[in-house]
């Protein structure tokens, strides 16, 4: 038996019920796959930064950044619950599937946001804490609540939220607001985001259309989107070699970045040459989307491995 607040627990059919949400449902609200990328890129920012940080403080900081990213994911799912119900890709998320109540998700997102920022601020410094707070705000408010439903540049500008983690990682060690190195890593992820998302959007135009999300292919058509994907890929390939010329990466990284950047642009070119739209683009679009995921991990892994190796070798 349980006492319940019927006003809060009232379901649509008029019956009161107790939540049957499990911890796994709440974990899913954190968008774990996005968190992996955030953790890894923040870790690279932290490791390549000049200076040292206590390993435990570094670990706590990375976890706080991950939780902050997860909190922004939960707030995004809370705000987007109405359109998540429409799209096949998102309708099995915890809110649309009815596993977690919307109010619970909002509270979860806010509590984790505050906890992650405070923990990061206390563990490292308040510059890093402020960057994390701004990142959460940018993703939850600027991207989710404003840009996503209002402009085809939504993921271009909104992509900045996913590009901030290396700057936060750098700030954990140095306490600096911005540096050339942090900005270059930011730029790489920022330029990577449009081709990555538009490759997916090209295959999901009907779903985005039904949800009234103005993704680039829905607004300007498949042909212009493919062209933009290609030019972003060229810009990305150029940005990816910048760490070498800025002096914080060596020849091994340059070789890996050149090869990967060339391959990325080649896949984007293949997509551009493929005629048609929707399902006709599935083959090259899926290839580019999957490659883009692997690409970013490989690029940052190369930078991380080279930095560690050079330090070990003295």
């Amino acid at each position: 038996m349980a006492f319940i607040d019927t006003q809060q627990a009232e379901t649509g059919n008029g019956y009161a019920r107790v939540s049957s949400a499990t911890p796994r449902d709440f974990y899913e609200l954190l968008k774990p796959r996005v968190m992996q990328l955030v953790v890894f890129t923040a870790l690279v920012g932290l490791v390549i930064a000049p200076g040292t940080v206590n390993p435990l403080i570094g670990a706590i900081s990375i976890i706080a950044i991950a939780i902050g990213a997860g909190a922004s994911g939960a707030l995004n799912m809370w705000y987007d619950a109405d359109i998540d119900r429409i799209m096949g890709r998102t309708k099995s998320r915890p809110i649309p599937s009815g596993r977690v109540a919307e109010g619970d998700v909002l509270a979860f997102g806010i509590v984790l946001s505050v906890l992650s920022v405070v923990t990061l601020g206390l563990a490292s410094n308040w510059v890093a804490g402020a960057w994390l707070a701004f990142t959460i705000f940018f993703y939850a408010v600027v991207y989710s609540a404003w840009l996503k439903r209002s402009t085809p540049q939504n993921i271009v500008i909104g992509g900045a939220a996913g590009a901030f983690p290396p700057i936060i990682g750098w700030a954990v060690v140095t306490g600096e607001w911005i540096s050339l190195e942090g900005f270059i890593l930011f730029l790489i992820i920022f330029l990577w985001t449009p081709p990555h998302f538009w490759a997916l959007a090209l295959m999901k135009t009907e779903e985005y259309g039904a949800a009234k999300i103005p993704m680039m292919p829905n607004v300007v058509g498949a042909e212009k989107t493919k062209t933009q994907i290609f030019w972003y890929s060229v810009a990305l390939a150029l940005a990816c070699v910048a760490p070498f010329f800025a002096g914080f990466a060596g020849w091994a990284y340059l070789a890996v970045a050149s090869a990967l950047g060339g391959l990325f642009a080649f896949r984007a070119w293949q997509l551009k040459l493929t005629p048609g739209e929707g399902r006709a683009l599935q083959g090259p679009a899926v290839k580019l989307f999957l490659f883009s995921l692997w690409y970013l991990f490989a690029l940052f892994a190369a930078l991380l491995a080279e930095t560690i190796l050079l330090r070990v070798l003295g």
Partner: protein
Amino acid sequence: MIETVEITEAEKKARKSRSVAIAVALAVLVGAFYAITVLKLGSAVLNRPL
């Protein structure tokens, strides 16, 4: 009158798992803040007006 409701076994199980998860999260948070305090302040942790 206080309104009550009989909860199902599945709801009881879910509630218990949520409670355990919250307890674990709080324990981790306490451990993290303890570690932060010791690492940031070191021996100076005792250097305060009593």
